[in-house]
Structures are given as C-alpha cells and as structure tokens.
C-alpha cells in the first residue's frame, strides 16, 4: 500500500471543502434560475416582416466588402452564433472587419403555420438581401448559412442563379437525410405523418425536435448532469453550461407546411442528393449553385453526421468550391476552442479572399 503523504491528504481535503462550497453556491445559482446574458453584441433591426428580422451588427471597423449576411436555421435560436463576449462567432467576424447582418426567423406561431420553404427561399431571403444592398450601397453579399440555414441558402442560390451573391459558405449543412438519425427516420422509414405531430397552432412543437435530438444520444441527458456535478465548482464551466443548455433545450416551433415539405422532399425523396427539388412550382438543381462555395463539416457532429453533410461538395456546380472537415461537434463549429482556432479563421480567410477592402 502506498504511503500517504499528510501534506497531500490535507491539500485534497482543503480542495474538496473549497469545491463543495463553490458547488453549493453555483447550485443555488442554477436552482434560482440565474441565467447568463446571451446574444449581447450590439445590433439594430434593419428590417422586419412577420416574425422575421434582419439584424445589423454595429461595427465601426468594417473594412471588407461586400457585406456578410448570415442565414440561420428554422428550428433553433440564432444567439448560438453570439453566445457570450469572447465566445461569439459574430464578434470574431466583426473584429475581422466584416459588415455582419443576420436573418433571424423569430419564433413562429399560428400565423406561420402555412409558411412553405418558398417563403424563406424566394421571399424573405431575397428581401433581406435587397435590404442589405440598399442600406450598404453595395451590389453583392457574401452569404453564410448555418445548419438548416445552409440548406435555405443553397435552395435560394439554386433557384435564383442571378442572385447577387459573391460567395456562399455553409456550416454543418445536411444534404443526405438518410444519415440524419432517428428524427428523420421516424418520418422517412417509419412513415409518420407531420400532421400527427402538429400542435394546435399548426406548427411542429419544439418538444418534438428536442426529443428527436435527445434520442440521437440517449445517455447524453444523464451525462450532462454528471458533468455538471463534477464541474459545478467551476464558475466558467457553469456559465458555459447554462448558456449552452438554455440554447439546446429551447428550440422554436417549425412551421407546419415547411415541415411537410422537408419531410417529403428532403427526407423521403432525399431530394438534395437525388436532384428532386422543387421550390414554389419550379424544379431546382444544386448544380446551378455557381458562385464560390465553402462547406464546413464536423467529423464529431451527432446532429448532422459527417455522411449527411459530406456529399454536398460534389452536388454544387461551383467551379471554385472548397470543403473543410474539422475535428469538432455540431456546436463546436461555432462555439469554443475549435471554432476560435480553426473554423472561424478559415471562414474569415475564405471570405476575405473573396472580398475587397472597402473604401
């Protein structure tokens, strides 16, 4: 049996007592619902229609043109891109000298239940782009889509080949929905109808989406509490935990009509891969996406697994196209160390090469 060093025993006892005191303090903070503030980078609402808003982040040091327009997903809240000071994707883009705009879809209610994909792809997105051009006096934008926002950006570019896009960057964007896991399989293989899960407001309730994501990693819920207990003494960890769980537990309703389209066209027909896409009444083809293109995918992404995002590079028709595979998870692409070290610098580099220094 190894000899016990009294100093190290005392040190461990002291550390455990300290940590338990901090655990108690942070535990009380969590139980009383104290939340860190998120999405705090200063911004202005430049345009709105229905629940959709176009945000313009303030930047006195915008050095690059054209402006950068971010298109967010339809099922979650966009503040993940602006989580907290020092851990904000948007903040980094601003510091790099970009003029950053974001199309936020808001929280859909019964007025959005009839929204179809064409509403976003053919109406809101072009209107948002037009507003950015009008307010900046530029004639093009760089488009950046995150997760399903990337699909919306791609559908827009494919349906509007003359849209004033300098480049498109998509991150963690699914195209092969056969690999999207249980949530897609229940509707695809299982044959569940979207109508069976609609709420009274005609939208897919956020709980359904959340349940689908939790099923992807059935033990993650328990592990998350185990991790929290172990690190409850660590203020920084607790703040990050609060911000992340508040985001990951708090999805928004998915407009019912758009969900029906997604299930039929993207899940059952696997339309992005099989080239069976219709927007409005028109057939569209990813091969018609011709502007400079970057796709970023994460090899530890459990929400959009690598095989679901990987075929994209071959599907778009852009001659100038690039793929970046990172050792990260879905959220890790935009939040945390990998994002800070690799994702954001690569995206900044890609867009800077396709931008000019503004005068």
């Amino acid at each position, binding site marked *: 049996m190894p000899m016990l060093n009294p100093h190290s025993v005392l040190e461990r006892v002291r550390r455990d007592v300290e940590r338990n005191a901090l655990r108690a303090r942070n535990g009380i903070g969590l139980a009383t619902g104290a939340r860190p503030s998120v999405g705090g980078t200063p911004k202005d609402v430049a345009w709105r*229609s*229905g629940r959709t808003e176009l945000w313009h982040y303030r930047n006195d040091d915008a050095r690059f043109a054209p402006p950068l327009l971010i298109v967010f997903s339809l099922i979650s809240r966009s503040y993940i891109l602006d989580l907290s000071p020092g851990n904000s994707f948007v903040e980094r883009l601003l510091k790099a000298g970009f003029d950053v705009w974001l199309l936020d879809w808001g929280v859909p209610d*019964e*007025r*959005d*239940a*009839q*929204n179809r994909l064409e*509403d976003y792809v053919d*109406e*809101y997105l*072009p*209107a948002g782009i*037009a507003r950015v051009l*009008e307010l900046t006096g530029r004639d093009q934008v760089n488009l950046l889509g995150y997760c399903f926002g990337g699909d919306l950006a791609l559908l827009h570019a494919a349906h509007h080949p003359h849209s004033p896009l300098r480049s498109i960057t998509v991150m963690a964007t699914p195209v092969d929905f056969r690999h999207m*896991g*249980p949530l897609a*399989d*229940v*509707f*695809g*293989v*299982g*044959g*569940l*109808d979207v*109508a*069976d*899960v609609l709420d*009274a*407001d*005609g939208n897919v309730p956020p709980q359904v989406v959340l349940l689908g994501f939790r*099923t*992807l*990693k*059935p*033990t993650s819920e*328990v*592990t998350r509490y*185990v991790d929290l207990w*172990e690190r409850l003494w660590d203020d920084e960890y607790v703040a990050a935990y609060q911000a992340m769980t508040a985001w990951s537990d708090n999805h928004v309703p998915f407009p019912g009509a758009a969900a029906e389209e997604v299930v039929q066209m993207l899940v059952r027909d696997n339309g992005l891969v099989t080239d069976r896409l219709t927007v409005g009444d028109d057939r569209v083809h990813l091969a018609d996406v011709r502007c400079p293109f970057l796709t970023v995918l994460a090899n530890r992404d459990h929400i959009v697994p690598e095989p679901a995002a990987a075929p994209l590079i071959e599907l778009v028709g852009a001659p100038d196209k690039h793929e970046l595979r990172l050792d990260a998870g879905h959220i890790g692409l935009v939040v945390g160390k990998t994002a800070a070290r690799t994702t954001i610098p690569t995206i900044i580099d890609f867009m800077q090469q396709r931008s000019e220094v503004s005068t």
Partner: protein
Amino acid sequence: MAQPPLWRRLYDTAERAVSPRLESVVRTEHFARGAALAGRAQAITRTQVAALSARVWHLVNLPTGADIARLRAQIGALDREVRRLALHVEQQQAQHDARTDEKETDGADAQSP
C-alpha cells in the same frame, strides 16, 4: 493531470458500455417504425378525445379547441398572404425606384455637353 474521482470513472465505464448499444438501437428500422406507431397512436388518441369534448361543448353551443385552431389556421393563412403581398409590393417599389433613378441619370447624361 489529476485522475477523475472513482464515481466518475465508474460512470464513464458504464456509459461507454451502454451508450453505443442504445445508439445503435435508436438507429434501427424497428425503432423508427415503433416510434412512428407510438406517434400515430398518440395523434389518434388526441383526435378522439378532442372529438368527444367537441360534442359536449357543441351541445351547449360553445366553440371547441378544434374550432379555435381552425380559425387560427385561417387567420394564419391570411396573414401569410398579406406578408407575401407586402414583400412583393416592396420589391416592385424598389424596382420602380431603380428604373426611375436610371432614367434620371440617363437624362442628365444626355443633357450634359
């Protein structure tokens, strides 16, 4: 680097053993079909309960949740049409303004010596 506490190591061992199995189960066709069946059963139950309560409310000439939902859906459809029209008007206006600007620029160019 300090080793994690014993309870944590035990949990990690158990998690490593259980998690891959559970993950492979939820990715099977049987699971997808089972979950879909459960979803459908839930929807049928919900519809039947709503129909039953609707009969009761209609007996006393009061609207039901389904009636309200139908109205909300109609208002929603109308709201969408209005939004789309507003966007089209905005777009037309912008195109009209751009054309007017072009004409004015051309006119000024023609007049200049």
